[in-house]
């Protein structure tokens, strides 16, 4: 009897804690959205309604949505990868999605394609790189499958990075090279509603399987043998979940360029707040990721006369924050 009451009590405390974390994160995100719409180089006043409408809906609105979408997607993918690779130090880049996207984008820019094609090739490059890593990794028999996957990811990522560096030396140093450099640093400045309308459904398509499998994904944090003994098929489940997370990351990277640290840092913060259960972790991580990138991007465009690349700022803020979280979390993730 006492135990039953205690169990109910503990369970409801956990629920309240989770609901509170979600509510606070959501309120914070909303407040940031309002702030981000209001601040910027062009001063807004209520007396000029048509101008207010143009600035908010057509200029700042898409950028705010893009920041939220990219932040949420990267955080979701990081949550997935850290869980299923059983490694708190991995980010969505670990299986080569960023380096593949970078190669795709650089090739498009070298061929002087338009910005839309740059994004298409970046998206395709990200997917292709992860497919290649998965294909090679699953053929390295006789090793721990996760180790093989991570190792292949690092190797292929390095190789693609080298190719990107090689291509940069071929680029026209006045026009193409700066464009490539800025793309690699990440930016949300030029995201248009049309690109959002393509990227958002792709990201949501990746999110749906993750949301449906939210409980089963937890089994992938166990050694494969244990998951199989519990009746799961970890190989197939992992492939599905990697595909979904990669789709989200590639959609995000294609419109934003490479913005690091969110996928590494945000899952940690979320796990510290609500524990490792994927069903609770995923929504909170997405809210925090959206809020974090929105805050960083707003800072980037409003704080200084020259726009800062958000990829640089996430790293500047993210590294000390990560060390602090690491110290807080001690042994457990």
């Amino acid at each position, binding site marked *: 009897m006492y135990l039953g009451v205690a*169990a109910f009590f503990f369970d409801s405390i956990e629920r309240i804690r989770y609901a509170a974390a979600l509510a606070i994160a959501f309120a914070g995100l909303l407040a940031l959205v309002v702030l981000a719409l209001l601040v910027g180089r062009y001063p807004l006043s209520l007396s000029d309604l048509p101008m207010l409408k143009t600035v908010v809906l057509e200029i700042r609105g898409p950028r705010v949505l893009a920041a939220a979408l990219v932040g949420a997607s990267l955080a979701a993918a990081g949550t997935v990868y850290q*869980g299923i690779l059983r490694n708190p130090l991995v980010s969505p880049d670990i299986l080569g999605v960023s380096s593949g996207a970078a190669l795709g984008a650089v090739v498009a820019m070298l061929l002087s394609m338009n910005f839309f094609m740059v994004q298409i090739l970046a998206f395709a490059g990200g997917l292709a790189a992860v497919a290649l890593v998965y294909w090679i990794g699953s053929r390295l028999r006789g090793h721990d499958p996760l180790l093989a996957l991570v190792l292949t990811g690092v190797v292929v990522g390095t190789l693609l990075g080298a190719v990107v560096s090689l291509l940069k030396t071929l680029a026209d140093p006045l026009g193409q090279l700066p464009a490539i450099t800025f793309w690699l640093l990440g930016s949300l400045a030029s995201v248009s509603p049309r690109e959002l309308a393509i990227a958002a459904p792709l990201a949501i398509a990746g999110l749906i399987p993750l949301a449906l499998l939210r409980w089963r994904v937890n089994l992938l944090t166990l050694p494969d043998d244990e998951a199989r003994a519990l*009746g799961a098929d970890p190989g197939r489940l992992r492939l599905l979940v990697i595909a979904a997370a990669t789709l989200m990351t590639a959609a995000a990277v294609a419109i934003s360029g490479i913005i690091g640290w969110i996928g590494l840092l945000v899952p940690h913060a979320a796990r510290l707040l609500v524990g490792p259960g994927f069903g609770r972790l995923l929504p909170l991580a997405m809210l925090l990721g959206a809020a974090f990138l929105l805050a960083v991007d707003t800072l980037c465009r409003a704080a200084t006369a020259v726009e800062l690349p958000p990829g640089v700022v996430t790293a500047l803020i993210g590294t000390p924050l990560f060390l602090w979280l690491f110290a807080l979390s001690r042994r457990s993730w």
Partner: protein
Amino acid sequence: MLAVDSLAFGYPRHTVGRDVSFTLGAGEVMCVLGPNGSGKTTLLRTLLGLLPLHEGKILFNGKDFSSFPRREIARFAGYVPQAHQPYFAYSVRDMVLMGRSAHLGTFSTPAAHDREVAARVLESLGISPLADRPVTEISAGERQLALVARALAQEPRLLVMDEPTASLDFGNQVRVLERIAALAAGGISILFSTHDPDHAFLAAQRALLLAEGRVLALGTPREVIRADTLERLYHVAVQVVPLEGGGHTCLPALK
């Protein structure tokens, strides 16, 4: 309940053992003894369908196990692996709930009934107070019991335990053996491996001595755990000493 017939087992390109046959009835406990590398873990993993059969048959209640899908095997046989340091700080309750996965649809999450099963299993093992503790912060003995709880949440007929007493202190070893006896009394068949032949005397009705992947002896602990068999198994001199009030214990003789 479980019938194993002239089994050859091992890794895809490497046979570890062969000619293993035995049966295990409902509520029976069998202890697998053998030196390091004798194939105990490989045998247990094969019985769980985690490694392919090379030859022979495994029957669960008379049905050929090789035709079972993973989920069916998981509802029949629960696996208690050697306790390791877990990666993530799931609560004991959440870890035990993972044992319900064979009873849940692909897109389902545990329902009230699954939570009841988890609570009941924790209660039966006497670890309900641990339910909300993170598995990363409990002791090795508690973690071993939590893994037993997870396997029991599968509601299996057979429990396969890989060295459940390894790395436990003396008291926790005894407690795990007590749990084994109690679970068997409740009708579950149990197969466990150990490095301590005394554990067979304490908790098992049957003992299987495995040497280089083959059955050296199979029978009741009293029949097969003798000075000569232990010496052939481990290559050390051992006395098997009868105890007052029944029972036996194994004492190695140092040279």
